């Protein structure tokens, strides 16, 4: 880090003094802002591990640098404040004080005050009118607090700088576990510092180092320089040690410069042009047949490729850059709301484009605040709900399908949909009947409406109604989406998906219907090639839907050419009626949203690193694509959005939903079915046979699962037939006995078919004789005499079928079903 004093020294010749000061102040501001950001993180970390001397030392050093610089630049108020902080920290460092929440609070307040002053300096050139006397006094008070033992920390007197260890060996890095070495001693033990390294190599004596360190405290020179000046070390040794350090820790040695983003943009475009010119040159060189020219163009090719990738990298930044400030935000919020929150960060090094990083900074901060304020409950409430007192807020970032996914997940109370509906009505966003009809998912979307807030009182954290709608618009502005899932009592997950406009992703290139497409490799699981001559079933049909048996599991298939309505290539024909008619079928096994499906393509060509480019606005609406890319030959190829494609093809709405949201999905499906019913009278029903002649229909929306068990699995509890099912005991109802009065032909077959019905967390098994079919049709019910558990009769597949009223049937068969569990279990056992 270049100190302002250094820059002053070399700039003094020439430029006028005011100009010079301006520049120095500017440098100071930039540098200090970075330092303050780091301080925030380090102080929060320090609170978690208060005994970390490394952290303490780093915090101390940072404050010291700020203090030194502002003293030099004549910002006396700022200096006074920093000084107060420094003295407090030195007490901590020397073990006279233990870190308490109060002290951390004081130090963080100081950081904020310093930040405020820096802003004042930036705006007016002076360090502001506020003198922060109260804060300085607070810091002084904190210093006088009695010595407290920090948790688990031994408060033995700390060795002082003037007492170097007796032998260098005891200061070797392995001795780091010794109780509380002081800051300066770190320089002895730490071979990542020049003093420590020289000591380890036996090139200097410990007492010389101690003397040099003392000198360094006074002045601001480098240890190496002091050692050379003292004649204690050979300049060559110091230089060699410096090189070793730089090689070992490149970060500390790498010089960075600031470059304007628009310059990078321009570079990016120029490199794009260069790459195109390169492509033309290469084609030209092939036709020219000149060995010398070909060699040159090959070289040019390599350089251009490398240049392109390096320039791309200049614009990418890890998302950690903006997450870094969340520990502080979360800590402050948690303290002010009286909550305990543990922040977990995952995927901090996920890289995305700089401009996108900037654009999502505020939306993400807002989401984090929301989770803390609305999501996570107070410790008392959490304990009551049987959860750990401290809530967990988890941020996760990862690349998927050429997009960056960011998840903000809390384990708080979840969204209160009732309240959301009510608030939306109060605020006039929807009419009452409309709100009542809304599905849960639609209701959840209400929180994205402008002006919406459910906060009881407006806090300084959130509840002002400028929130989720702003988050949504900001994310959508950069082509992203916001999705929210919530389970009452278990928490809320917000998923932000943003495109990587410039990201390079590995992709599999395929062709279908004569067109080329790129499939992001993250979605790719495996490739399967079916030869027509190969024995085995190949592609089979289940109710018109093609499937393939992949190692015993049914893999639903999607024909890319059909999905995209491309003219089918010769030989494939209409795959729905004549699958696998061609000689070979290529199946790309993909994963989207945790589920697998197979994509049938004409040809699989190659894998390639592609540059994701956004589609024009005219094509944004097509969910099947996530972007486009330019191939080596200069032509454009579309990048498939696997999730979008799967949703289009409806291969995702089946079994195998991710467990967490299974109930939600089922509920949604039930609602959907109910809506369909009310709209057109259409219903999907499961047709079963009970007894010899009787056909029954059960609305499919009520069916949790279809199972087959050996008859031996049926046990009895009292008079009730029961069965062990997924770790629980569920009662069984024999439909034929119940509805027709017929005695079930006992042991007629050794397997029983069970339709599992669930309600309010309780399940019951309906034993049927045969499962016949699933039918989607309009049900014209006719009343054929009152029977308990039967809604009426209708004609399905030209045969009279009774439509079951499962809910009341179950209640007739098992009185007390779906009451509080205690009542039922006593009836069962």
């Amino acid at each position: 880090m270049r100190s302002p004093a250094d820059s002053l020294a070399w700039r003094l010749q020439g430029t006028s003094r005011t100009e010079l000061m301006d520049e120095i102040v500017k440098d100071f501001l930039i540098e200090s802002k970075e330092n303050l950001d780091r301080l925030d993180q380090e102080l929060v970390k320090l609170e978690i591990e208060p005994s970390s001397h490394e952290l303490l030392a780093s915090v101390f050093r940072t404050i010291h640098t700020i203090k030194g610089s502002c003293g030099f630049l004549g910002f006396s108020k700022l200096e006074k404040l920093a000084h107060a902080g420094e003295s407090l920290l030195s007490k901590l460092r020397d073990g006279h004080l233990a870190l308490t929440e109060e002290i951390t609070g004081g130090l963080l307040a100081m950081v904020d005050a310093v930040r405020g002053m820096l802003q004042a300096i930036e705006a007016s050139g002076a360090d502001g009118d506020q003198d922060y006397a109260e804060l300085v006094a607070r810091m002084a008070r904190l210093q006088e607090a009695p010595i407290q033992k920090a948790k688990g920390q031994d408060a033995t007197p700390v060795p002082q700088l003037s007492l170097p260890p007796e032998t260098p060996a005891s200061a070797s890095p392995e001795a780091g576990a010794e109780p509380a070495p002081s800051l300066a001693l770190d320089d002895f033990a730490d071979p990542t510092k020049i003093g420590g390294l020289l000591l380890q190599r036996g090139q200097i004596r410990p007492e010389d180092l101690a003397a040099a360190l003392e000198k360094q405290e006074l002045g601001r020179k480098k240890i190496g320089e002091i050692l050379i000046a003292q004649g204690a070390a050979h300049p060559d040794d110091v230089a060699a040690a410096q090189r070793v350090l730089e090689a070992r820790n490149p970060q500390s040695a790498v010089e960075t410069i600031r470059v304007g983003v628009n310059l990078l943009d321009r570079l990016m475009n120029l490199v794009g042009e260069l790459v195109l010119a390169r492509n033309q040159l290469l084609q030209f060189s092939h036709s020219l047949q000149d060995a010398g020219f070909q060699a040159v163009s090959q070289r040019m090719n390599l350089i251009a490729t490398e240049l392109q990738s390096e320039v791309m990298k200049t614009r990418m930044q890890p998302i950690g850059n903006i997450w870094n400030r969340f520990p502080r935000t979360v800590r402050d919020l948690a303290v002010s709301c009286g909550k305990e929150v543990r922040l977990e960060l995952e995927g901090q090094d996920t890289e995305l484009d700089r401009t996108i990083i900037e654009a999502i900074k505020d939306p993400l901060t807002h989401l984090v605040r929301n989770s803390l304020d609305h999501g996570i409950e107070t410790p008392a409430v959490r304990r009551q709900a049987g959860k750990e007192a401290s809530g967990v807020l988890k941020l996760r970032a990862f690349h998927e399908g050429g997009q960056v996914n960011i998840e903000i997940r809390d384990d708080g109370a979840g969204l209160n949909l009732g309240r959301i509906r009510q608030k939306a009505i109060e605020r006039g966003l929807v009419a009452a009947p409309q709100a009542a009809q809304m599905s849960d998912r639609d209701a959840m979307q209400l929180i994205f409406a402008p002006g919406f807030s459910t906060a009881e009182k407006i806090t300084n954290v959130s509840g002002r109604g400028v929130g989720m709608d702003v988050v949504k618009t900001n994310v959508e502005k950069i082509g992203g989406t916001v999705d929210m899932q919530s389970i009452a009592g278990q928490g809320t997950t917000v998923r932000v998906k943003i495109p990587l406009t410039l990201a390079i992703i590995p992709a599999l290139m395929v062709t279908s219907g004569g067109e080329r497409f790129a499939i992001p490799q993250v979605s790719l699981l495996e490739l399967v090639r079916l030869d027509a001559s190969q024995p085995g079933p190949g592609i089979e049909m289940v109710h018109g839907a093609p499937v393939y048996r992949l190692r015993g599991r049914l893999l639903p298939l999607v024909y890319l050419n059909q999905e995209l309505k491309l003219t089918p290539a010769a030989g494939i024909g209409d795959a729905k009626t004549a699958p696998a008619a061609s000689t070979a079928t290529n199946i790309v096994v993909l994963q989207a949203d945790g589920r697998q499906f197979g994509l049938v393509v004409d040809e699989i060509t190659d894998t390639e690193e592609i540059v994701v480019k956004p589609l024009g606005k005219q094509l944004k609406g097509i969910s099947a694509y996530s972007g486009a890319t330019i191939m080596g030959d200069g032509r454009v190829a579309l990048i498939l959005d696997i999730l979008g494609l799967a949703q289009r093809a409806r291969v995702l709405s089946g079994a195998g939903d991710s467990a967490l949201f299974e109930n939600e999905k089922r509920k949604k499906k039930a609602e959907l079915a109910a809506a369909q019913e009310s709209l057109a009278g259409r219903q999907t029903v499961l047709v079963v046979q009970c007894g010899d002649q009787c056909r029954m229909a059960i609305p499919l929306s009520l069916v949790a699962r279809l199972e087959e068990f050996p008859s031996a699995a049926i046990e009895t509890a009292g008079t009730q037939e029961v069965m062990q099912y997924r770790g629980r005991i569920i009662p069984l109802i024999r439909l034929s006995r119940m509805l027709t009065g017929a005695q079930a032909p006992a042991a007629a077959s050794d397997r029983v078919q069970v339709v599992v019905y669930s309600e309010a967390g309780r399940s019951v098994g309906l034993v049927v004789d045969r499962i016949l079919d699933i039918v989607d049709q309009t049900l014209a019910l006719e009343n054929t005499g009152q029977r308990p558990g039967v809604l009426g009769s209708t004609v399905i597949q030209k045969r009279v079928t009774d439509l079951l009223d499962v809910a009341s049937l179950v209640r007739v068969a098992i009185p007390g079903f779906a009451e509080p569990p205690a009542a039922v279990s006593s009836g069962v056992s």
Partner: protein
Amino acid sequence: MASSQQFCTFFLSGHFFGTPVPQVQEVIQYQEMTRVPLAPEMVSGMINLRGQIVPAIDLRKRLGLPPRPAGEQPMNVVVRTSEGAVSLLVDEIGDVIEVGEEMLESPPETLAGCARELVEGVYKLPGRLLLVLDTERAVDGAKTVPTAT
């Protein structure tokens, strides 16, 4: 003296169209295009314009004119719009002409269909009429009027 404006002119199925020169980024030869399945019908595909991916809109389809005879290759008029560069496919490129405002008239009421929305005005040139294309609308329509495929 009324002010005058420069137009980049082109032909579409015998009609003489123009767009103001400042809106035109460049005019290029027919480029190989990548089809976009499921896209609105008027989006013929995408072209690679020096590393930038630009959608190409078939103005004949957009204006409801008969399709281009087979074998004829269209030209690209790349226009700057609020949504980035977009290429308009036209039959043939005309000259850049300067016309005075006194010759401008609003489009005739009898103009049919899409053309009515997309023609901003008509210049009465000696011998023929110059139809001024509203490029923003021509491009926007591709978004708002998706055609079932």
